[in-house]
């Protein structure tokens, strides 16, 4: 019997996602995070109004994965591009998708000022503690002692600086905002991350403020760990430094 009579679809690819295969490494969190963003856009009816802004890094080609209008931006400049675009197209739902090198290294100026202006944009900030695409160099978010190709004996903060906690920092400058940190290392946290991403889109759609979710992510290739061990590391090493939670909520959450 190959008829689908009497069956109903309970799970499928979101319409905000193309059917092109993902280019990411096995065990990379980008796949999960992309899906959460696409599901939220569909559920909020935002997909047809959305304009996503890509950044440099492994997710540079995610314009191929999201089935909405997309604009490519230079490394770190997403928040500035989003500012110009949203001011011209205030009815569009403008979001950036940025890694930690993009947002916390080269783009630090742009994100701080976009947050301080409370730009009505949504920022998906993927923190995996390394520069993934270029082969595993130290990022501003690399944890103390973590070994990278830049500093093979491990991060010495007295030499190369202390890791940046962007969600906390930005909450200090953005009086109209929703800023949270989530993780996707297990089912419970993935569902909570989706809720946070939903709030970050809603705060824009309701013209209430700036939305940002920092999502802790894995990088099996550059952490040199298998995917399951990566999830364990998020729990044991990453979350103690980057606590989950909401750092700014200046509107009514749904």
């Amino acid at each position, binding site marked *: 019997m190959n008829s689908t009579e009497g069956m109903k679809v309970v799970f499928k690819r979101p319409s905000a996602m193309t059917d092109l295969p993902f280019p990411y490494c096995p065990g990379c969190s980008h796949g999960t995070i992309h899906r959460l963003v696409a599901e939220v856009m569909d559920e909020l009816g935002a997909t047809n109004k959305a304009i996503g802004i890509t950044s440099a890094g492994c997710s540079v080609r995610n314009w191929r994965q999201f089935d909405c209008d*997309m*604009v*490519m931006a230079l490394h770190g400049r997403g928040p500035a591009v989003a500012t110009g675009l949203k001011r011209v197209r205030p009815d569009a739902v403008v979001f950036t998708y940025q890694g930690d090198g993009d947002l916390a290294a080269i783009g630090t100026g742009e994100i701080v000022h976009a947050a301080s202006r409370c730009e009505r944009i949504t920022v998906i900030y993927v923190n995996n503690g390394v520069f993934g695409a270029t082969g595993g160099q130290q990022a501003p978010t690399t944890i103390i002692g973590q070994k990278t190709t830049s500093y093979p004996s491990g991060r010495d903060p007295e030499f190369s600086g202390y890791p940046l906690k962007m969600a906390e920092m930005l909450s200090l400058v953005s009086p109209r905002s929703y800023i949270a940190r989530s993780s996707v290392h297990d089912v419970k946290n993935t569902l909570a991350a989706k809720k946070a991403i939903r709030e970050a889109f809603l705060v824009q759609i309701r013209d209430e403020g700036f939305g940002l979710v920092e999502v802790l992510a894995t990088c099996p290739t550059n952490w040199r760990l298998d995917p399951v061990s990566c999830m364990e590391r998020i729990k044991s090493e990453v979350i103690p430094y980057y606590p989950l939670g909401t750092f700014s909520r200046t509107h009514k959450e749904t």
Partner: protein
Amino acid sequence: MMSEKVLMRGNEAVGEGAIRAGCRYFFGYPITPQNELFEYMARRLPEVGGLFLQSESELSGINMVFGAASGGARCMTSSSGPGFTLMGEGFTSLAAAQLPAVVVCVSRSGPGLGRISSAQSDYRLATRGGGHGDYQCLVLGPGNAQELYELTYQAFELADHYRNPVIILSDAILGQMMEPVDIEVLPELDTPRKEWAVRGKGENPRKVIKLAPYTDEELIDWNLKLKEKYQQAKDKEQRHEALYTDEASVVVVAFGSTGRIAMDAVMKARQEGIPVGLFRPISLWPFPEKALRELLPGVKKFLVLEANNGQMIEDVHLTVCDHAQVVHYGVGGGHIFTPNEIYGEIVKLEQMK
């Protein structure tokens, strides 16, 4: 009907030209000597329902322009040398993504931090694109307040036509001087609808504004298309002004504010019987090579006058090759020519064997 002229500072004439052409978005950062343009837009844009937003740097400003342009706006930014350098990534990405934008550079003395005196030392940076990769910006070099107004207006039309950034290369002298400007000579324009712009896909297939394609082969194709586009611009957009060059054996080549000062010297020399003319490039890219080449073989000597250490002279050399003598006079760092000084150089060159 007598057209009413408005006494305007050069920097303000640029702003009014932009607004007349339908520009409704300015994103930028303060820097001397363009602050009058900045403040003019801050005042005028809200009056016409537009948006003025100060950016936290020129780097951020040019990226805001990128965003606004991708949404279909007529938008601009402006700066001087140090900020212009910061915009380098913006020029190459606007050109790559084929986005229209107008960028004004009110040059000051350099290099490095420089000072706020006038110079023409950003010619090379502007005419060679300002950033990495194979692309060009169209560059216009106004010489008076009326041209600052009209060429800025035309810049928006050119930017949309070629889907490319266009630079207005001004300088501190032009920016500060006050002259009457005829505003009414140009009709008011609205922002045209741009089918390629992003606005949310609605019921249509989605659009992607790309900085680069997905494959190596496509990128070579992109570069070929850009090459063709710039060849078209070279064929169609050369502009210049030529005075007394038909009868001349010595021609002074000068752009922008230097062109103005050179005029006085050329007139004085002609009164003394020296067969000298003035060739004033108005498009700096594409350089008006066709018209300049037509002066050969009659013109034997070119005096390239520019307030820098020798930048436009490279384009004169490329055009003239060995067919005439080409001499540079000028220096960067804030030197302002006097007509007498230039007259002296004309005489010297005319007498040189």
